[in-house]
C-alpha cells in the first residue's frame, strides 16, 4: 500500500523548553521551515503563515498545542503559493512530539494524511471529467449547428 505517513526522529542535546521554542515561535519557524519569515497564532485553530523566498507563501492552521509535549498543524504542501485555507482533504497533518531524554530531547515528527489528499484529488479529477464531458456536449451541438448552416 502507498505509505500514508512519514515519520522522522532526532535526539537534540538541549532541554525540551528550548526545542519547544524553536518549533513554535515565529522567529524560529521562519528560519528552519520557511526561509523568509513566519507568523503563528499559537493556539488550536490559530493561523500560520510560512514564507519562502523562492516558493512564496503557504498557509497553515494550528491543531494541537500541549506546551513542551505536543504541537501539530495542518498545511497544504501541494498548494500554489498563497494557496487556499488548509482543511481536511487538501492538507497534511504535521505532528511534533517532544520527550525529555536525560538532558536531551527526543523530537519526533509525523506528517500524515497523504491518502486523504488523494481522495480530494480524485474528486477534482471527477469534476474535471464532468467539465470535459460538458465541453464535448457543447462542441457536438456546435458541430451540428455548423453542419445545418452549411447544408
Amino acid at each position, binding site marked *: 500500500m502507498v505509505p500514508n505517513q512519514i515519520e522522522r526522529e532526532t535526539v537534540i542535546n538541549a532541554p525540551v523548553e528550548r526545542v519547544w521554542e524553536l518549533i513554535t515561535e515565529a522567529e524560529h519557524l521562519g*528560519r528552519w521551515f520557511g526561509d523568509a519569515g513566519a507568523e503563528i497564532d499559537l493556539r488550536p485553530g490559530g493561523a500560520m503563515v510560512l514564507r519562502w523566498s523562492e516558493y512564496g507563501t503557504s498557509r497553515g492552521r494550528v491543531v494541537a498545542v500541549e506546551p513542551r509535549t505536543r504541537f501539530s498543524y495542518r498545511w497544504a*504542501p501541494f498548494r500554489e503559493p498563497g494557496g487556499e485555507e488548509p482543511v481536511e482533504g487538501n492538507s497534511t497533518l504535521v505532528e511534533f512530539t517532544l520527550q525529555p531524554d536525560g538532558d536531551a530531547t527526543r523530537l519526533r515528527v509525523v506528517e500524515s494524511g497523504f491518502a486523504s489528499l*488523494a*481522495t480530494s484529488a*480524485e474528486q477534482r*479529477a471527477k469534476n474535471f471529467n464532468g467539465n470535459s464531458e460538458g465541453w464535448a456536449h457543447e462542441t457536438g451541438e456546435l458541430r451540428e449547428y455548423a453542419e445545418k448552416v452549411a447544408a
Partner: protein
Amino acid sequence: MSAPAEGVFAALADPTRWRVLSLLAERGEGTATSLAGELPVSRVAVVKHLAILDRAGLVKGRREGREVRYTVRTEPLGETARWMAGIASQWDARLAAIKRMAEEG
C-alpha cells in the same frame, strides 16, 4: 512543491483498487472479466477501478475484440516512492536545522 504523485495517491487510496493493481502486476496482464473472476467485486466495479488507474497512468489498456487487456505501468509508482523519499529527506534537513539551532544555544 510540485506533486506528480497526487493522482497516484488518489488511485491507490482505495484498497480494492490496490488489489486490482496488485493482481494485474502478479498476472502480467488481465481484463476486467478475468480480474473480476478473482476478486469479490463485480466486473462493472473492476471496469471503474481500471478507468481510475488508467487516468492516474498506473495501467495501460489495449483493446482486443470486445475486451480491453491491461498491463501495469511501473514508472508512476517509482515516482511516488521517490516523491515520498523527497518529503522524508526534507524533514531530515528540517530536524537537522532545529538540532543545530538548539545546540548552538
